[in-house]
């Protein structure tokens, strides 16, 4: 794990001298988290998640001069990853967004009745809407605080809390079913 100072040094090298080795070190440091983020969003599709992760880092490289350092590089990277996933979904489904630009809440199938105990967490995550899933993954898996999730997704804090609460409720129901 890179310290903040090391990260700043590497970023400076990337910006000033286009040092590919420095950028490679940044990729190496964050590839696990970004790939895991996409892996959970794509329900375990390794090929797709790797492809999205690569696109994220390439976009980060191309826009590295736009990184102002107001947030941590990791938060900025996750913001790009989030936008990349959003673009992927739009291409895939041609889903129109609402006035605020958010994905629509997908109808979730309530499979809790007569469910067998073998329902796994993956299936539970699938029950969530896209926005709920993204927020749940960022909050619980990536341990991002609400403030960072707000920076990553651009959603207001109230909306994030709402998605978190609904997602938690749905997951809580599944936990009770498993018990």
């Amino acid at each position, binding site marked *: 794990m890179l310290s903040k100072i090391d990260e700043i040094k590497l970023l400076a090298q990337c910006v000033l001298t*286009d040092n*590919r080795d420095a*950028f*490679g070190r940044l*990729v*190496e440091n964050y*590839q*696990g988290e970004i*790939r*895991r983020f996409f*892996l*959970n969003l794509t329900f*375990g599709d390794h090929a797709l*998640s*790797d492809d999205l*992760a*690569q696109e994220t*880092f*390439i976009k980060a*490289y*191309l826009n590295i001069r736009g990184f102002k350092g107001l947030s941590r590089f990791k938060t900025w990277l996750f913001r790009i990853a989030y936008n990349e996933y959003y673009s992927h979904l739009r291409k895939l489904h041609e889903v129109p967004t609402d006035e605020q630009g958010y994905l629509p809440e997908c109808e979730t199938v309530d499979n809790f009745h007569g469910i067998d105990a073998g329902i*796994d*967490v*993956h299936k539970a*995550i699938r029950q969530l809407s896209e926005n709920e899933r993204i927020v*749940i*993954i960022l*909050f*619980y*898996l990536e*341990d991002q*605080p*609400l403030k960072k999730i707000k920076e990553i997704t651009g959603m207001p804090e109230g909306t994030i*809390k709402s998605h*978190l609460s609904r997602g*938690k409720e749905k*997951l*809580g129901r599944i*936990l009770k079913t498993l018990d």
Partner: protein
Amino acid sequence: MKRDEIDIEISRMLKQSLPEAGHDKWFTRKVLNRLPDKQKHSRGWIEPCLYFTGLLVCFIGWGLFLCSLSPNVILVKDIVSFGILTVTTFLLIWNIVENVFVGDI
């Protein structure tokens, strides 16, 4: 928003159950291979100015060298001067030609 016990439990459950990406030793290489070619940075007017000045100095140097030559005597300093001037001129011209063909200037 502070995390309560339920949050900690959900976090633990998800981390235990959902897949880890694992470290891919080739991932970084794949990303670096997909990056665009390195751009040669244009140094604007400074580089052509320096090359022109270098050529001018070389030209003056050759002029002085040829004027200082004695008709029938070749001194050690003449050989040394000739060597230095030749190498310097060659390197300068080589750099100019390389940059012109690459398109930097």
